[in-house]
């Protein structure tokens, strides 16, 4: 479904991503793990169109989307839940959700989809009229995911969904991500919490210093020495 080939990203003189190859099949959960600054978020940014790659190719569903603007990529069916959630603080929960589907669904369809989201995230139904900025971190994360799902994407990119959340909330969010796959969605997950990521992922790729250094099934990686020493503290 998604193929990233020899991706290179540069911010001025700094090379954030040297070479990343990645392939994601339909219905899979793929985890992209690695230390802070390894190039994970930049890779997601390039797929979503926020960052123009210096070299390489990104192909989604057989179409080359390299360097296309984010609005185009979104309309092809890729939704990014950005790091730090970035919900619209001055907009109500309802407005946040509506913008998520505004360009993808006709009005009646969007209404129905909004109801589905409110069923999926009952807490959002309770806070429907509340401004996004007044929600707690976990609630904001739910809103961010719901907002991305409003577009009925086929591929969802999740950037550090556990960041800054209370442990109980992390479990809820990850249960939810696992649930998304059951609904046929493909997930590309960037996560610093490697143990957690490997728990729900089918396959994973390890990034270090902007390069993909290791790839395999989640099980293989969880037992590999490199991963155990570097990320699982074993």
């Amino acid at each position, binding site marked *: 479904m998604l193929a990233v080939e020899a991706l290179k990203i540069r911010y001025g003189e700094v090379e954030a991503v040297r070479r990343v190859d990645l392939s994601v099949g339909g219905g899979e959960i793929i985890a992209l793990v690695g230390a802070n600054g390894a190039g994970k978020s930049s890779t997601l940014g390039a797929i*979503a*169109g*926020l960052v123009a790659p210096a070299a390489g190719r990104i192909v989604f569903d057989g179409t080359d989307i390299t360097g296309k*603007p*984010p*609005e185009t990529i*979104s*309309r092809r069916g890729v*939704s*990014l839940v*950005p790091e730090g959630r*970035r919900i*619209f*603080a*001055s*907009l109500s929960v309802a*407005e*946040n959700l*509506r*913008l*998520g589907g*505004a*360009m*993808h669904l006709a009005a009646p369809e969007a209404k129905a989809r909004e109801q589905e989201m409110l069923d999926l995230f009952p807490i959002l139904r309770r806070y429907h009229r509340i401004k996004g*900025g007044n929600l707690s971190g976990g609630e904001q994360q739910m809103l961010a995911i719901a*907002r991305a799902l409003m*577009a009925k994407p086929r591929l969802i990119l999740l950037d550090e969904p556990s960041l800054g959340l209370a442990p109980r909330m992390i479990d809820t969010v990850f249960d939810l991500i696992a649930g998304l796959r059951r609904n046929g969605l493909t997930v590309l997950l960037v996560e610093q919490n490697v143990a957690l990521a490997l728990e729900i992922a089918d396959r994973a790729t390890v990034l270090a210093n902007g390069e993909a250094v290791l790839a395999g099934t989640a099980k293989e990686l969880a037992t590999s020495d490199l991963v155990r020493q570097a990320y699982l503290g074993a």
Partner: protein
Amino acid sequence: MVAQQIINAVSLGGVYALLALGLAIVFSIVGLINFAHGELMTVSGYALLASLFLGFPFPAAVLVAVACGALAAVAMERVAFRPMRGASITSLLLTSFAVSSLLKVVFQNGVSARPQAIAMPSWMTGAFSLGDFTIGVGPTISIVVSVLALIALEVFLRRSVTGTAMRAAAEDFDVVRLLGIPASRIIATAFLLSGLLAGLAAMLWVAQRASVDPLMGFTPVLKAFIAAVVGGLGSLPGAVAGGFLLGVIEVFLQATLPAAAAPYRDAIVLSGVIAVLLVRPQGLIPAVRVQRS
């Protein structure tokens, strides 16, 4: 007396609010103070002159003039600012200065450096009595139009998808694009709205001044800029509050300052602005904007 001065202040403040709002909308989306905003007023003013000259009835001429202001704003974005997208704020600012100077020269050389008279319909120079005091039709129109425009804008921003997207874009433009909403649509709408507001303000301005001249946009845009800064740059409620505050201060000083101190009027107003900013550096109602690295 006092009631009349309050009407004067609201009438003037309303025009400032419309202009400041136009500046704030564009600033909130693209981070640019459009110094050519005043020339949008000039475009509208001359469009009114031309429409009347061509024999359009007055209401039609006003519609044409306001529409010209809006179109000019969109064209300005297309021609001058879109090619500069991604350039630094300084470059954009200089571009807006260049556009402003260019348009001034176009009107100065293309029409005349001399102000052109626009005779307002006679009903606009009338007055009506309300209880004890007489109220001019001019200030009344000015207040009604500004208030209606503010309400219409509020409804648009609250109820429509594009309006909601614009409020969202003011906070975090990238995420709006991630949701599939085209950047160019948001930016074009921002300029369109700012042009509409400038066109309306120009009509109120011309109604009060009965003439248009190539430099007519300079003073009001300067005032609007002050109002926008006082209110909190990029904050729409702030721009409205700043506009009305400036109107009140100006009318108050004009009404009460002794003649000997009159030359210092602008200095006093600007000192007041500095005082406000010392107490509230982000303005009266600061803009919500996500801090990003």
